[in-house]
Protein backbone atom coordinates (compact mmCIF):
# COMPACT_ATOMS: atom_id res chain seq x y z
CA UNK A 1 0.00 0.00 0.00
CA UNK A 2 1.45 3.38 -1.05
CA UNK A 3 1.63 6.31 1.33
CA UNK A 4 3.25 9.74 1.51
CA UNK A 5 3.96 10.27 5.19
CA UNK A 6 4.38 7.82 8.05
CA UNK A 7 3.26 8.77 11.54
CA UNK A 8 4.35 6.60 14.44
CA UNK A 9 2.15 7.09 17.51
CA UNK A 10 2.83 3.72 19.08
CA UNK A 11 2.48 3.77 22.85
CA UNK A 12 -0.08 6.60 22.83
CA UNK A 13 -3.67 6.05 23.93
CA UNK A 14 -6.97 7.69 23.05
CA UNK A 15 -7.32 10.58 22.17
CA UNK A 16 -3.71 11.10 21.08
CA UNK A 17 -3.59 8.91 17.93
CA UNK A 18 -6.36 10.95 16.30
CA UNK A 19 -5.07 14.27 17.69
CA UNK A 20 -1.58 13.62 16.26
CA UNK A 21 -3.00 12.40 12.96
CA UNK A 22 -5.10 15.55 12.61
CA UNK A 23 -2.07 17.67 13.42
CA UNK A 24 -0.07 15.88 10.73
CA UNK A 25 -2.88 16.23 8.20
CA UNK A 26 -2.77 20.00 8.71
CA UNK A 27 0.75 19.95 7.27
CA UNK A 28 0.09 18.00 4.06
CA UNK A 29 -1.70 18.82 0.81
CA UNK A 30 -4.98 17.23 -0.19
CA UNK A 31 -4.70 13.86 -1.83
CA UNK A 32 -1.77 12.81 0.36
CA UNK A 33 -1.95 9.56 2.30
CA UNK A 34 -0.77 9.11 5.88
CA UNK A 35 0.26 5.73 7.25
CA UNK A 36 -0.40 5.78 11.00
CA UNK A 37 1.06 3.16 13.37
CA UNK A 38 -0.69 2.63 16.70
CA UNK A 39 -0.59 0.11 19.53
CA UNK A 40 -3.92 1.13 21.07
CA UNK A 41 -6.44 -1.50 20.02
CA UNK A 42 -9.30 0.93 20.51
CA UNK A 43 -7.84 3.01 17.67
CA UNK A 44 -9.32 0.59 15.11
CA UNK A 45 -12.90 1.60 15.94
CA UNK A 46 -11.83 5.16 16.74
CA UNK A 47 -10.44 5.73 13.27
CA UNK A 48 -13.58 4.21 11.71
CA UNK A 49 -15.83 6.45 13.82
CA UNK A 50 -13.73 9.48 12.96
CA UNK A 51 -13.83 8.75 9.21
CA UNK A 52 -17.62 8.42 9.41
CA UNK A 53 -17.99 11.95 10.77
CA UNK A 54 -15.13 13.91 9.22
CA UNK A 55 -15.78 14.75 5.55
CA UNK A 56 -12.22 16.01 5.02
CA UNK A 57 -10.61 12.59 5.38
CA UNK A 58 -10.97 9.10 4.00
CA UNK A 59 -9.96 5.94 5.81
CA UNK A 60 -8.57 3.89 2.95
CA UNK A 61 -7.44 0.78 4.76
CA UNK A 62 -6.72 -0.71 8.18
CA UNK A 63 -4.47 -3.67 8.84
CA UNK A 64 -2.58 -5.40 11.61
CA UNK A 65 1.20 -5.95 11.51
CA UNK A 66 3.61 -7.42 14.02
CA UNK A 67 6.73 -5.68 15.29
CA UNK A 68 10.07 -7.46 15.82
CA UNK A 69 8.88 -8.69 19.25
CA UNK A 70 5.67 -10.08 17.83
CA UNK A 71 3.57 -7.30 19.37
CA UNK A 72 0.57 -6.19 17.31
CA UNK A 73 0.64 -2.87 15.51
CA UNK A 74 -2.56 -1.39 14.11
CA UNK A 75 -1.99 0.43 10.85
CA UNK A 76 -4.38 3.03 9.45
CA UNK A 77 -4.12 4.62 6.00
CA UNK A 78 -5.76 8.03 6.07
CA UNK A 79 -6.16 10.22 2.99
CA UNK A 80 -6.63 13.97 3.14
CA UNK A 81 -9.47 14.80 0.75
Amino acid at each position, binding site marked *: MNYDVMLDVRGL*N*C*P*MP*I*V*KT*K*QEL*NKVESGKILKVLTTDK*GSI*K*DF*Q*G*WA*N*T*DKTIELIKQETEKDENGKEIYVHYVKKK
Partner: protein
Amino acid sequence: MTKNISPSELYEKMLKDENITIIDLRSPDKFKNHKIEGKDNFRILNIYYAQMIETGDIDKDMKNYITKNLSNAISKDQPIYVICSEGGTSEIFARNLSELGYDVYNVVGGMKEWFNYYDYKTVIETPELSIYQVSRISRGDLSWIIISNKEATIIDPLRHIEKYTDFINQKGAKIKFILDTHAHADHISSGPKLSKILNVPYYLHPYDAIHPIDMIPGKLNFEYLKDGDVFNLGSAKIEVIHVPGHTLGNVVFLLNGKYLFTGDTIFILSVARPDLGGRGETWAPLQAESLYKLTQLPDETIVLPAHFSKISEANEQGLYIEKLGNLKKTNDALNLLITKGKEEFIRFMLSSLPVFPPQYVEIKRVNAGLIEVDDEKADELETGKNVCALSQAYV
Protein backbone atom coordinates in the same frame (compact mmCIF):
# COMPACT_ATOMS: atom_id res chain seq x y z
CA MET B 1 -9.10 20.44 39.96
CA THR B 2 -10.84 17.65 38.12
CA LYS B 3 -13.07 15.56 40.30
CA ASN B 4 -13.49 11.87 39.62
CA ILE B 5 -16.69 9.88 39.96
CA SER B 6 -17.10 6.11 39.81
CA PRO B 7 -19.92 4.36 37.92
CA SER B 8 -21.54 3.39 41.23
CA GLU B 9 -21.51 6.97 42.55
CA LEU B 10 -22.96 8.20 39.27
CA TYR B 11 -25.67 5.53 39.35
CA GLU B 12 -26.70 6.47 42.90
CA LYS B 13 -27.12 10.09 41.76
CA MET B 14 -29.16 8.94 38.77
CA LEU B 15 -31.40 6.83 41.05
CA LYS B 16 -32.08 9.90 43.21
CA ASP B 17 -33.10 11.74 40.04
CA GLU B 18 -30.55 14.47 40.68
CA ASN B 19 -30.02 17.02 37.95
CA ILE B 20 -27.47 15.38 35.69
CA THR B 21 -25.86 16.51 32.46
CA ILE B 22 -23.52 14.02 30.85
CA ILE B 23 -21.21 14.85 27.97
CA ASP B 24 -20.30 11.71 26.04
CA LEU B 25 -17.20 12.31 23.92
CA ARG B 26 -17.30 9.12 21.85
CA SER B 27 -18.00 8.97 18.13
CA PRO B 28 -21.67 9.12 17.06
CA ASP B 29 -21.55 5.42 15.99
CA LYS B 30 -20.49 4.27 19.42
CA PHE B 31 -22.96 6.61 21.11
CA LYS B 32 -25.82 5.28 19.00
CA ASN B 33 -24.93 1.68 19.87
CA HIS B 34 -24.89 2.16 23.60
CA LYS B 35 -25.27 5.11 25.91
CA ILE B 36 -26.16 5.88 29.50
CA GLU B 37 -29.88 6.40 30.09
CA GLY B 38 -31.34 8.09 33.15
CA LYS B 39 -34.54 9.44 34.67
CA ASP B 40 -36.41 12.70 34.10
CA ASN B 41 -33.69 15.10 35.25
CA PHE B 42 -31.10 13.41 33.11
CA ARG B 43 -29.63 14.94 29.97
CA ILE B 44 -26.91 13.51 27.75
CA LEU B 45 -25.05 15.34 24.99
CA ASN B 46 -22.93 13.53 22.43
CA ILE B 47 -20.02 15.82 21.58
CA TYR B 48 -17.43 13.93 19.61
CA TYR B 49 -13.91 14.86 20.67
CA ALA B 50 -12.38 14.50 17.19
CA GLN B 51 -14.45 17.42 15.92
CA MET B 52 -12.82 19.65 18.56
CA ILE B 53 -9.30 19.07 17.27
CA GLU B 54 -8.11 21.90 15.00
CA THR B 55 -4.45 22.70 15.64
CA GLY B 56 -3.43 19.54 17.49
CA ASP B 57 -2.74 21.46 20.72
CA ILE B 58 -5.41 19.53 22.53
CA ASP B 59 -5.95 21.83 25.54
CA LYS B 60 -6.18 24.91 23.35
CA ASP B 61 -8.49 23.17 20.86
CA MET B 62 -10.82 21.88 23.55
CA LYS B 63 -11.07 25.25 25.30
CA ASN B 64 -11.78 26.98 22.00
CA TYR B 65 -14.49 24.48 21.21
CA ILE B 66 -16.11 24.83 24.63
CA THR B 67 -16.15 28.63 24.46
CA LYS B 68 -17.41 28.74 20.90
CA ASN B 69 -19.92 25.88 20.85
CA LEU B 70 -20.88 24.76 24.34
CA SER B 71 -21.38 27.86 26.44
CA ASN B 72 -25.09 27.96 25.58
CA ALA B 73 -25.68 24.26 26.09
CA ILE B 74 -24.10 23.84 29.52
CA SER B 75 -24.15 25.86 32.71
CA LYS B 76 -21.50 26.67 35.28
CA ASP B 77 -24.09 26.32 38.05
CA GLN B 78 -24.78 22.63 37.60
CA PRO B 79 -22.44 19.66 37.71
CA ILE B 80 -21.37 18.19 34.39
CA TYR B 81 -20.27 14.57 34.06
CA VAL B 82 -17.90 13.69 31.26
CA ILE B 83 -17.45 10.21 29.82
CA CYS B 84 -15.57 8.62 26.90
CA SER B 85 -14.63 5.05 25.93
CA GLU B 86 -11.97 4.32 28.53
CA GLY B 87 -11.53 7.50 30.57
CA GLY B 88 -8.47 9.07 28.93
CA THR B 89 -10.11 11.67 26.71
CA SER B 90 -12.73 12.55 29.29
CA GLU B 91 -10.02 13.30 31.85
CA ILE B 92 -8.41 15.85 29.53
CA PHE B 93 -11.75 17.37 28.56
CA ALA B 94 -12.88 17.54 32.19
CA ARG B 95 -9.68 19.36 33.15
CA ASN B 96 -10.25 21.92 30.41
CA LEU B 97 -13.88 22.45 31.39
CA SER B 98 -12.82 22.82 34.99
CA GLU B 99 -10.15 25.39 34.07
CA LEU B 100 -12.89 27.40 32.37
CA GLY B 101 -14.87 27.46 35.61
CA TYR B 102 -17.30 24.55 35.18
CA ASP B 103 -18.20 22.10 37.95
CA VAL B 104 -16.99 18.88 36.34
CA TYR B 105 -16.72 15.20 37.17
CA ASN B 106 -14.77 12.71 35.09
CA VAL B 107 -16.47 9.30 34.97
CA VAL B 108 -13.55 7.01 35.78
CA GLY B 109 -12.88 4.15 33.37
CA GLY B 110 -15.36 5.48 30.81
CA MET B 111 -18.05 3.38 29.13
CA LYS B 112 -15.84 0.31 29.52
CA GLU B 113 -16.26 0.47 33.32
CA TRP B 114 -19.88 1.54 33.11
CA PHE B 115 -20.63 -1.36 30.78
CA ASN B 116 -19.33 -3.92 33.25
CA TYR B 117 -20.50 -2.24 36.43
CA TYR B 118 -22.69 -4.37 38.72
CA ASP B 119 -24.90 -2.88 41.42
CA TYR B 120 -25.90 -4.78 44.59
CA LYS B 121 -29.02 -4.07 46.60
CA THR B 122 -30.67 -5.92 49.46
CA VAL B 123 -34.30 -7.03 49.20
CA ILE B 124 -34.35 -8.75 52.58
CA GLU B 125 -31.59 -9.88 54.95
CA THR B 126 -32.21 -12.35 57.78
CA PRO B 127 -30.32 -15.57 58.66
CA GLU B 128 -33.28 -17.65 57.44
CA LEU B 129 -33.73 -15.71 54.22
CA SER B 130 -31.71 -13.12 52.35
CA ILE B 131 -32.36 -11.92 48.81
CA TYR B 132 -29.97 -9.67 46.93
CA GLN B 133 -30.52 -7.92 43.61
CA VAL B 134 -27.42 -8.06 41.41
CA SER B 135 -27.82 -5.80 38.43
CA ARG B 136 -25.71 -4.97 35.43
CA ILE B 137 -27.11 -1.48 35.08
CA SER B 138 -25.81 -0.62 31.62
CA ARG B 139 -27.77 -3.51 30.10
CA GLY B 140 -30.85 -3.49 32.30
CA ASP B 141 -30.05 -7.06 33.39
CA LEU B 142 -31.13 -8.32 36.80
CA SER B 143 -30.10 -11.45 38.64
CA TRP B 144 -30.79 -12.61 42.16
CA ILE B 145 -28.87 -14.25 44.98
CA ILE B 146 -30.86 -16.14 47.60
CA ILE B 147 -29.22 -17.25 50.85
CA SER B 148 -30.86 -19.30 53.57
CA ASN B 149 -28.88 -20.64 56.54
CA LYS B 150 -25.60 -20.13 54.65
CA GLU B 151 -26.80 -22.01 51.58
CA ALA B 152 -26.90 -19.93 48.42
CA THR B 153 -28.29 -20.06 44.91
CA ILE B 154 -28.18 -17.65 42.01
CA ILE B 155 -31.10 -17.07 39.67
CA ASP B 156 -30.11 -16.03 36.12
CA PRO B 157 -26.41 -15.34 36.79
CA LEU B 158 -24.92 -12.85 34.31
CA ARG B 159 -21.59 -13.31 32.57
CA HIS B 160 -19.05 -12.19 35.19
CA ILE B 161 -18.79 -15.02 37.70
CA GLU B 162 -16.61 -13.23 40.27
CA LYS B 163 -19.43 -10.72 40.78
CA TYR B 164 -21.32 -13.59 42.44
CA THR B 165 -18.63 -15.76 43.99
CA ASP B 166 -16.93 -12.82 45.77
CA PHE B 167 -20.23 -11.51 47.16
CA ILE B 168 -21.43 -14.92 48.35
CA ASN B 169 -18.04 -15.68 49.94
CA GLN B 170 -18.22 -12.39 51.81
CA LYS B 171 -21.59 -13.39 53.18
CA GLY B 172 -20.02 -16.63 54.42
CA ALA B 173 -22.38 -18.74 52.34
CA LYS B 174 -21.83 -21.62 49.94
CA ILE B 175 -23.45 -22.01 46.54
CA LYS B 176 -25.58 -25.16 46.45
CA PHE B 177 -26.97 -24.98 42.91
CA ILE B 178 -27.50 -22.54 40.03
CA LEU B 179 -30.84 -21.75 38.37
CA ASP B 180 -31.66 -20.22 35.00
CA THR B 181 -35.26 -19.26 34.25
CA HIS B 182 -34.59 -19.87 30.56
CA ALA B 183 -31.92 -19.88 27.84
CA HIS B 184 -31.23 -16.17 27.49
CA ALA B 185 -30.92 -14.47 24.12
CA ASP B 186 -29.66 -11.05 25.20
CA HIS B 187 -26.76 -11.95 27.47
CA ILE B 188 -24.40 -14.81 28.23
CA SER B 189 -25.30 -16.88 31.27
CA SER B 190 -22.50 -17.88 33.63
CA GLY B 191 -24.57 -20.82 34.90
CA PRO B 192 -22.64 -23.57 33.05
CA LYS B 193 -19.26 -22.05 33.97
CA LEU B 194 -20.15 -21.60 37.65
CA SER B 195 -21.44 -25.15 37.74
CA LYS B 196 -18.17 -26.48 36.35
CA ILE B 197 -15.88 -24.39 38.56
CA LEU B 198 -17.81 -24.91 41.79
CA ASN B 199 -18.90 -28.45 41.01
CA VAL B 200 -22.56 -27.69 41.76
CA PRO B 201 -25.56 -28.56 39.58
CA TYR B 202 -26.86 -26.11 36.97
CA TYR B 203 -30.61 -26.35 36.37
CA LEU B 204 -32.44 -25.45 33.18
CA HIS B 205 -35.66 -26.65 31.57
CA PRO B 206 -34.64 -29.24 28.93
CA TYR B 207 -36.70 -27.58 26.16
CA ASP B 208 -34.31 -24.63 26.42
CA ALA B 209 -31.26 -26.78 25.83
CA ILE B 210 -32.31 -26.95 22.17
CA HIS B 211 -31.38 -23.96 20.04
CA PRO B 212 -34.79 -22.81 18.74
CA ILE B 213 -33.59 -21.27 15.49
CA ASP B 214 -30.85 -23.74 14.57
CA MET B 215 -33.18 -26.53 15.81
CA ILE B 216 -30.29 -28.58 17.09
CA PRO B 217 -29.58 -29.83 20.61
CA GLY B 218 -27.11 -27.83 22.67
CA LYS B 219 -24.02 -29.22 24.34
CA LEU B 220 -24.65 -28.38 27.94
CA ASN B 221 -23.96 -30.07 31.22
CA PHE B 222 -27.15 -29.42 33.12
CA GLU B 223 -29.84 -30.94 35.29
CA TYR B 224 -33.46 -31.02 34.12
CA LEU B 225 -36.02 -28.68 35.65
CA LYS B 226 -39.71 -29.48 35.41
CA ASP B 227 -43.00 -27.96 36.49
CA GLY B 228 -43.72 -28.63 40.15
CA ASP B 229 -40.13 -29.38 41.20
CA VAL B 230 -39.29 -28.06 44.67
CA PHE B 231 -35.77 -27.12 45.76
CA ASN B 232 -34.73 -26.90 49.39
CA LEU B 233 -32.23 -24.18 50.18
CA GLY B 234 -31.45 -23.92 53.90
CA SER B 235 -34.92 -23.53 55.38
CA ALA B 236 -36.33 -21.97 52.18
CA LYS B 237 -38.40 -23.68 49.49
CA ILE B 238 -38.22 -22.80 45.80
CA GLU B 239 -41.00 -24.08 43.56
CA VAL B 240 -40.74 -24.34 39.77
CA ILE B 241 -43.61 -23.19 37.56
CA HIS B 242 -43.34 -23.88 33.81
CA VAL B 243 -44.55 -20.90 31.80
CA PRO B 244 -43.67 -21.34 28.10
CA GLY B 245 -43.96 -18.38 25.75
CA HIS B 246 -40.81 -16.28 25.80
CA THR B 247 -39.01 -19.58 25.36
CA LEU B 248 -40.48 -23.09 25.34
CA GLY B 249 -38.66 -24.05 28.52
CA ASN B 250 -39.33 -20.80 30.34
CA VAL B 251 -39.91 -21.22 34.07
CA VAL B 252 -40.43 -18.93 37.05
CA PHE B 253 -39.35 -19.64 40.61
CA LEU B 254 -41.66 -19.09 43.58
CA LEU B 255 -39.70 -18.70 46.82
CA ASN B 256 -41.56 -19.51 50.07
CA GLY B 257 -44.85 -18.89 48.25
CA LYS B 258 -44.13 -15.16 48.28
CA TYR B 259 -41.25 -14.07 46.04
CA LEU B 260 -41.78 -14.75 42.36
CA PHE B 261 -38.61 -14.65 40.25
CA THR B 262 -40.25 -14.02 36.91
CA GLY B 263 -37.22 -14.12 34.60
CA ASP B 264 -38.53 -12.99 31.22
CA THR B 265 -42.28 -13.14 31.78
CA ILE B 266 -43.57 -10.19 33.80
CA PHE B 267 -41.36 -7.10 34.02
CA ILE B 268 -42.21 -3.95 35.98
CA LEU B 269 -43.18 -1.90 32.94
CA SER B 270 -44.09 -4.55 30.38
CA VAL B 271 -43.95 -8.25 29.60
CA ALA B 272 -41.47 -10.39 27.66
CA ARG B 273 -41.71 -10.64 23.89
CA PRO B 274 -42.67 -14.07 22.45
CA ASP B 275 -40.64 -13.93 19.21
CA LEU B 276 -36.97 -14.34 20.20
CA GLY B 277 -37.12 -18.03 19.32
CA GLY B 278 -38.12 -17.06 15.77
CA ARG B 279 -41.72 -18.30 16.16
CA GLY B 280 -43.57 -15.30 17.56
CA GLU B 281 -46.98 -16.17 16.10
CA THR B 282 -46.88 -19.72 17.44
CA TRP B 283 -45.50 -18.80 20.83
CA ALA B 284 -47.62 -15.69 21.52
CA PRO B 285 -50.71 -17.73 22.57
CA LEU B 286 -48.50 -19.78 24.91
CA GLN B 287 -47.13 -16.58 26.38
CA ALA B 288 -50.66 -15.20 26.91
CA GLU B 289 -51.71 -18.43 28.65
CA SER B 290 -48.59 -18.45 30.85
CA LEU B 291 -48.87 -14.81 31.85
CA TYR B 292 -52.54 -15.30 32.66
CA LYS B 293 -51.62 -18.24 34.89
CA LEU B 294 -49.17 -16.01 36.78
CA THR B 295 -51.78 -13.28 37.33
CA GLN B 296 -53.81 -15.85 39.28
CA LEU B 297 -51.19 -15.90 42.05
CA PRO B 298 -52.01 -13.83 45.17
CA ASP B 299 -51.80 -10.05 44.77
CA GLU B 300 -49.29 -9.92 47.63
CA THR B 301 -46.76 -11.96 45.58
CA ILE B 302 -43.60 -9.95 44.96
CA VAL B 303 -42.35 -9.94 41.38
CA LEU B 304 -38.57 -9.94 40.86
CA PRO B 305 -37.83 -9.90 37.11
CA ALA B 306 -34.69 -10.52 35.02
CA HIS B 307 -34.72 -7.14 33.29
CA PHE B 308 -35.64 -3.52 33.57
CA SER B 309 -36.02 -1.14 30.64
CA LYS B 310 -35.68 2.15 32.48
CA ILE B 311 -34.02 3.24 35.70
CA SER B 312 -37.27 4.95 36.67
CA GLU B 313 -38.72 1.48 37.30
CA ALA B 314 -36.64 1.19 40.48
CA ASN B 315 -38.37 1.83 43.80
CA GLU B 316 -36.94 4.07 46.53
CA GLN B 317 -34.52 1.37 47.63
CA GLY B 318 -33.21 0.98 44.08
CA LEU B 319 -35.01 -2.35 43.72
CA TYR B 320 -36.69 -3.38 40.49
CA ILE B 321 -39.46 -5.28 42.26
CA GLU B 322 -43.20 -4.77 42.75
CA LYS B 323 -46.24 -6.52 44.16
CA LEU B 324 -48.18 -8.52 41.58
CA GLY B 325 -51.43 -6.82 42.61
CA ASN B 326 -49.97 -3.40 41.81
CA LEU B 327 -48.54 -4.59 38.49
CA LYS B 328 -51.95 -5.81 37.42
CA LYS B 329 -52.96 -2.14 37.48
CA THR B 330 -49.77 -0.29 36.49
CA ASN B 331 -48.23 -2.64 33.93
CA ASP B 332 -50.08 -1.78 30.69
CA ALA B 333 -49.53 -5.14 29.01
CA LEU B 334 -50.62 -7.14 32.04
CA ASN B 335 -53.58 -4.85 32.59
CA LEU B 336 -54.68 -5.34 28.99
CA LEU B 337 -54.46 -9.12 29.37
CA ILE B 338 -56.66 -9.05 32.47
CA THR B 339 -59.23 -6.53 31.25
CA LYS B 340 -59.45 -7.33 27.51
CA GLY B 341 -58.64 -11.03 27.41
CA LYS B 342 -56.11 -13.26 25.70
CA GLU B 343 -57.14 -12.69 22.05
CA GLU B 344 -56.70 -8.96 22.18
CA PHE B 345 -53.55 -9.35 24.24
CA ILE B 346 -52.03 -11.63 21.59
CA ARG B 347 -52.77 -9.07 18.87
CA PHE B 348 -51.24 -6.37 21.05
CA MET B 349 -48.07 -8.41 21.66
CA LEU B 350 -47.57 -9.21 17.99
CA SER B 351 -47.98 -5.56 17.04
CA SER B 352 -45.53 -4.43 19.73
CA LEU B 353 -42.38 -6.32 18.81
CA PRO B 354 -39.15 -4.33 18.79
CA VAL B 355 -36.43 -5.04 16.22
CA PHE B 356 -34.95 -8.53 16.56
CA PRO B 357 -31.25 -7.97 17.34
CA PRO B 358 -29.38 -10.37 15.00
CA GLN B 359 -26.69 -11.14 17.59
CA TYR B 360 -29.36 -12.76 19.82
CA VAL B 361 -29.20 -15.91 17.68
CA GLU B 362 -25.46 -16.12 18.34
CA ILE B 363 -25.83 -15.44 22.09
CA LYS B 364 -28.29 -18.35 22.31
CA ARG B 365 -25.67 -20.55 20.64
CA VAL B 366 -23.22 -19.60 23.39
CA ASN B 367 -25.82 -20.31 26.08
CA ALA B 368 -26.64 -23.68 24.49
CA GLY B 369 -22.95 -24.62 24.63
CA LEU B 370 -22.75 -24.79 20.83
CA ILE B 371 -19.98 -22.19 20.54
CA GLU B 372 -17.50 -20.56 22.87
CA VAL B 373 -16.48 -16.90 22.75
CA ASP B 374 -13.70 -14.92 24.43
CA ASP B 375 -14.34 -11.84 26.58
CA GLU B 376 -13.81 -9.43 23.72
CA LYS B 377 -16.34 -11.19 21.49
CA ALA B 378 -18.72 -11.52 24.46
CA ASP B 379 -18.51 -7.76 25.11
CA GLU B 380 -19.33 -7.16 21.47
CA LEU B 381 -22.32 -9.54 21.49
CA GLU B 382 -23.65 -7.95 24.66
CA THR B 383 -23.30 -4.34 23.50
CA GLY B 384 -26.32 -2.20 24.24
CA LYS B 385 -29.31 -2.65 26.44
CA ASN B 386 -31.49 -5.75 26.50
CA VAL B 387 -34.48 -5.76 24.13
CA CYS B 388 -36.47 -8.56 25.76
CA ALA B 389 -39.69 -6.67 26.51
CA LEU B 390 -42.44 -5.44 24.20
CA SER B 391 -41.73 -2.19 22.37
CA GLN B 392 -43.61 0.23 24.62
CA ALA B 393 -40.98 -0.42 27.28
CA TYR B 394 -38.40 1.40 25.18
CA VAL B 395 -40.37 4.50 24.22
